[in-house]
């Protein structure tokens, strides 16, 4: 096993049973939230995952962190298979891998003071120490740019950005090597968003973290990720070095996603070549056959309906799951890495 790899997902699948039938109302359908996802996160690197609402990003994050059990597949953390650990081992896993949450309001217990919240990991890991823990908590607060004097304050007394810092401090408490951030800035104001992104970036460098950074907005990931994975309906449609993906997206969906982000330049308004996707994301309960994107894809052909495209390397170190991917200029492919 490659010792350079911090976290690896192999063919992860997560189905949520739903619907009901028969007299006893047993579930008869399932939401295919994550449907065969494979990933690798190198040590010290940042992997960005993007995709629209409901495509399974959070589910993937929760499977990776073992908050829920995958239906099938494997999660490998620092070389160890953690897919089915439990008890003490699982608790150790939790030390190595932590999560930062999207909503700065709901991710902090409103009834706990900041000191309690950041100290919670020590408490639940049985490492609470009357003397050392508060000192460590204050250190952490300083680390994320919070005033340690606010130790005894409550979440409602902080702004959104500060709350997100609290969440980050909590995630860092146990010195994890892998941090999974599930849309950590989506709920924040633009002006504060930048603070948090900078903070995360700085922390990653300082603490040599391996980071999975989830967002629904490609422009946010751009700044932080070395590699990007684009998800659509529970599957990864494109994965590769950030530079490649951003400058030369191969999958039509990635392309559309990129072009949908409004450009901050009034002069390029109404620019040509913009791709507007039609319709909405189909239901993950019964996704389209073949290529899942075909219902919204302007390139779709009969083949797309019949055969599911596999994630394949297009020769530039980037993987794409499309029957008709965009051409990749070789030069760029080489430039990456």
């Amino acid at each position, binding site marked *: 096993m490659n010792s350079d790899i911090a976290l690896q997902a192999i063919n992860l699948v997560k189905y949520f049973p739903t619907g009901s*039938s028969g*007299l*006893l*109302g047993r579930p008869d359908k399932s939401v295919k939230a994550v449907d065969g996802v494979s990933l690798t996160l190198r040590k010290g690197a940042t992997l960005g995952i993007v995709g629209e609402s409901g495509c399974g990003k959070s589910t993937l994050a929760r499977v990776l962190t073992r908050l829920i059990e995958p239906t099938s597949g494997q999660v490998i953390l620092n070389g160890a298979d953690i897919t089915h650990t439990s008890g003490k081992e699982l608790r150790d896993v939790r030390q190595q891998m932590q999560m930062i949450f999207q909503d700065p309001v709901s991710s902090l217990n409103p009834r706990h003071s900041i000191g309690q919240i950041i100290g919670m990991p020590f408490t639940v890991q049985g490492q609470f120490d009357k003397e050392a823990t508060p000192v460590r908590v204050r250190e952490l607060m300083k680390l994320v740019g919070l005033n340690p004097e606010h130790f005894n304050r409550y979440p409602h007394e902080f702004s959104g950005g500060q709350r997100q810092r609290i969440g980050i401090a909590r995630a860092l408490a146990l010195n994890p090597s892998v941090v999974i951030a599930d849309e950590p800035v989506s709920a924040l104001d633009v002006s504060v968003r930048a603070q948090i992104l900078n903070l995360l970036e700085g922390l990653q460098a300082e603490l040599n973290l391996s980071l999975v950074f989830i967002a629904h907005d490609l422009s946010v990931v751009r700044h932080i990720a070395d590699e990007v994975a684009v998800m659509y309906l529970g599957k990864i449609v494109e994965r590769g070095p950030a530079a490649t993906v951003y400058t030369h997206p191969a999958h039509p969906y990635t392309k559309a996603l990129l072009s949908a982000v409004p450009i901050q330049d009034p002069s390029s308004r109404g620019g040509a070549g913009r791709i507007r996707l039609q319709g909405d994301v189909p239901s993950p309960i019964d996704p389209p056959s073949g290529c899942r994107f075909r219902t919204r894809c302007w390139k779709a052909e009969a083949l797309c309906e019949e055969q599911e495209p596999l994630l394949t390397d297009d020769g530039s170190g980037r993987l794409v799951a499309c029957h008709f991917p965009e051409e990749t200029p070789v030069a760029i492919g080489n430039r990456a890495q």
Partner: protein
Amino acid sequence: MLLFIIRRLFFAIVLLIAVSVFTYFLFALLPTDPAALSCGIHCKPETIAANRIRLGYDKSIFEQYWLFLKGIFVGRDYGIGTAAFTCPAPSLGYSFNQHACVTSLIGETFPVTAYLSIGAFILWMMIGIGVGAIAALNKGKWQDRLATAFASVGVSLPTFYFGLLALFSIVIWFQILPFPSYESPLDNFPAFITAMILPWLVLAIISAASYTRLTRNGMLEAMNEDFVRLGVAKGLRLRVILRRYVMRQALIPIVTIAGLDFAGLLGGAIITESVFSLPGMGRMSIRAVVDSDLPVLVGTTMIAAVFIVLANVIVDIAYGFLDPRVRVS
């Protein structure tokens, strides 16, 4: 939707069977011996033994339950020799105290309870929702305080106390109404109304309280909804917004609770019926308690449970109709 209803009904039946088992065994295993109680002052051991046979308590509890269940479907025989007789299906047993089949006893008393419940229900919904709406629309003003106080006083009074107080003051001191004396509405409608108005009011005021609260809070919550804002922005009249937007939303939880409360009443408004001498199911059941009349107790408990369970089903289904989001496609 149909499947949903069928499933709910199926669960309801399972639940009712569970209730019947519990009820039957609970009462049957009580330490009181109805046989000993049935012969009053003149009990001799032989009489008690004879009575036990007469009442059917000589059989094992399982056999008794089986007979009870069977009775519901095929009727049941009682008595001995030339004095034998049958309670036809659906038989819930025979009351030796009242000398009648429980089913027919319930048939006689139930209408009274039903009239009482329906009238009170209509009144209390009107009062409760009306007062609650006034409170919500005048939040923070004196009307709101008054309505809240009304709600608090309403729930705080034990029914018997409030009932008797109402009876004495309205009938005796102010002489506004004659003494209530129940008559069937089919026989004498005006007398029926005069007899029922007071118990209706008493039940209504006592129960309206929680509805006032619910309506008030529900409306206030609804008024904060985005879609109400959009309704205003559309240029709709206040009246329309209240009806189509605010009330519509506020009423949903009320319907749920009202259904269950109403079912609870149908099971017997025990205290109200006693205070106002209404010959309803509630008073019959309390009489059954006093007389250790187990068949009647089991019967009324079962009927009450049927109503409660049925109300649950209806409320669930109604929910689907009221809230399209819940509707199962």
